[in-house]
């Protein structure tokens, strides 16, 4: 009798101990996972996806394989509509980036927004730096803004498409200071940098990894960093608000999203799974090598964040004179 009570007791204890895990394991992947990205091979999200699937494979975090699929086109819109057609599917997930938020705002053809899909977690945020050539007369962001005030519209910035962070930061700065300078779009990162290094434009927003090498070589100077707080690798460079310009910190984000109507237990599973990935040493090393920041957010946090983030982009883009469709 005593024995039986003991057994019953230990079984109960075991059940209680496992309850948390069991709830998360209501769903278990049984087939290869389709891991969708909107960039071609070698693009930002493609490299991130391949790095993740590499970590997952090495650390044996999944019983099945993660297969990266590229659905390029329309700055993410093709991938988004592909994902939206997989209603309720549990084995297809995708990496999203800023363009999944901004793209649908600016495109008549888009039929889906990030909110129509199932946001799961946010993984990284990427800081940026505002740079000039080393022989430029501007020693601080204030120098540049002052000069822009003196000759409105004459100074130039090179950058990507009009919906990119480069332009959004410019818009925020121009609105804050009442200045104007030109923005010249280049499709490739190489051409943007060449325009700055060749002296054809005066200023540019760059990713810190690339700027770091030019800094070491003495060909560029960083005026300010676009980050919540100073990066460990750039302890002496002020953030934009520290440089005297109180604009909101516009983030470059990357995270995971599922198709519409993904069952709750699958969402839970993937949320817990990516929380586990984000804790591995390999992931931390990856972030460090690329000078990314750990921007992990749970599903609940992310859903709220997407609303705020979309509103921010809509306001800025409208101010920039971009046609907003939704």
């Amino acid at each position, binding site marked *: 009798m005593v024995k039986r009570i003991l057994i019953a007791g230990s079984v109960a204890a075991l059940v209680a101990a496992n309850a948390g895990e069991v709830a998360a394991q209501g769903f278990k992947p049984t087939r290869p996972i389709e891991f969708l990205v909107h960039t071609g091979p070698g693009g930002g999200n493609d490299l991130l996806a391949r*790095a993740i699937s590499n970590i997952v494979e090495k650390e044996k975090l999944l019983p099945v394989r993660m297969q990266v699929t590229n659905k390029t086109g329309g700055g993410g819109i093709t991938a988004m509509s592909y994902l939206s057609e997989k209603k309720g599917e549990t084995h297809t997930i995708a990496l999203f980036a800023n363009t999944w938020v901004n793209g649908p705002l600016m495109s008549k053809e888009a039929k889906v927004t990030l909110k129509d899909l199932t946001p799961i977690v946010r993984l990284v945020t990427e800081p940026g730096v505002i740079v000039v050539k080393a022989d430029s007369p501007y020693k601080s962001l204030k120098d540049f803004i002052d000069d822009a005030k003196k000759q409105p519209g004459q100074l130039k910035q090179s950058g990507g498409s009009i919906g990119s962070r480069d332009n959004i930061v410019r818009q925020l700065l121009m609105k804050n200071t009442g200045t104007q300078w030109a923005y010249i779009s280049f499709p490739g990162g190489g051409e943007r940098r060449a325009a700055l290094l060749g002296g054809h434009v005066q200023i540019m927003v760059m990713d810190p990894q690339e700027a770091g090498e030019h800094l070491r070589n003495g060909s560029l100077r960083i005026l300010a960093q676009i980050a919540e707080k100073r990066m460990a690798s750039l302890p002496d460079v002020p953030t934009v608000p520290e440089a005297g310009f109180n604009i909101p910190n516009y983030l470059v984000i990357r995270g995971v999203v599922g198709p519409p109507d993904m069952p709750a237990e699958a969402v839970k599973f993937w949320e817990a799974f990516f929380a586990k990935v984000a804790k591995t040493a390999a992931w931390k090393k990856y972030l460090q090598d690329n000078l990314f920041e750990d921007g992990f957010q749970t599903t609940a946090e992310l859903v709220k964040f997407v609303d705020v983030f979309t509103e921010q982009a809509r306001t800025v883009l409208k101010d920039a004179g971009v046609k907003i469709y939704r």
Partner: protein
Amino acid sequence: MEIFSGLLQGFAVALTPVNIMWCFIGCFLGTIVGILPGLGPPATIAMLLPLTFQMNPTSAVIMLAGIYYGAKYGGSTTSILLNVPGESASVVTCLDGYQMARNGRGGAALGIAAIASFIAGTFGVIMLMLVAPPLAKFALAFSSPEYFALMCMGLAMVVLLAGKSMVKALLAMLVGLWIAGMGTDLFTAESRFTFGQAELLDGIDFVVVAIGVFALGEVLGNMETREGVAMLPVPKGLRNLLPNVEELKACRFAFLNGSVVGFIIGILPGAGSTVASFISYGIEKAVSKHPEKFGTGVPEGVAAPEGANNAETGGAMVPMLTLGIPGSGTTAILLAAFILWGLKPGPLMIQDNPELFWGLVASMYIGNVILLILNIPLIPLFAQILKLSQYVLYPIIFGISVVGVYSVSDSLFDLSLLTFFGLLGYCMRKLDYPQAPLILGLVLGDAMERALRQSLMMSQGDLSILVSRPLSAGMLVLTALVLAVPMFRKANAWRMKAID
């Protein structure tokens, strides 16, 4: 002396058995990727990236670079044999290469393509080694106004690509320019000519148009004629399959032209090998003693673009290695790979990793030799394809075209576009419209429009920016000269008649 010791060090790295093996694997994979239309080096390198994480970075870059320049060797094969461009830069090779094959000189065309690739590829490496740092500065002096002038020069080549009728050539070019304008506008994020189709937001892929207009158009046209093309003549014996002395002699200038043009355009981050191949073909035709024979299967018409296409590799490595600036899709992925291996691409990379730079340079010399040895024996094998009769060959071309187009972006929509452009190519053949100007307009239109708008944004709408900068002004003058070539020719012909 520094170069000498560096190169010695490089060969010490590249000649280790392991690195020779990786170099061979890269070249071999590259050749295959080049032969298959659609799947290009960027996609291949991205797929292979995870495998290289465990490798020594130098070995890895030797292999991946091998894929890059190896694909350029292979790209000409299907252009010459089947009129299916294996990759975008091989479109120009179709013009004379395919005609050579139809004249029974398919093997010779393949041989000339391989030799031109070898000479220009090696030239590119030598230049990369000797003058990389000063040339990187030249690349930076190039900005939007200069690119606009360069694209104008490219577009002016249309007068040289035109067949009998200049009007028809210009019309075809305009259609190409129109197609190039489709998709999302970079500057305003608005969509143009998408007809509400999300699939058209990125415009139409160049590969779809090129394969449709060239390969499918050709097949449809040939199926109609039936007689005469049942079997293409393939001479017996290895000796007759390879280029003969006269053919090689005819190509002397083309080898040099392709090498120089390809390398210079390769350095510029905003141009690319397709532009390089068009321009070198145009130059070749402009200086030729028998320009009227271009398009009927002259060996120079194969040697110049193939050379340009291969020298471009060495050029594109200049800004990549000295500044960390990618000039093409493939170099962008190679740079991303450097970061994954823990290297820091940027202006100090050569200084920090001399063994990698010199190892890569040395391996490219070795790789070019490997490719030549690999490609020449394949010629008799590939030439056998031409012996196949129509009802076997045409379905193969259809199959290769469909698979090639589908592999670019896994899109069924692209296949319906392919059908459309196949029919367009057929109609153009029937109505005697040249196809090359359409492709030229399509290749250059996008970059040209962008460069013009960027220039005008820089100058706040002042057009004089295009002529006030010496480099762009110089190129615009050259453009005017190119446009005047046919007039000179005509005037000359009249004078000759008058003398007679």
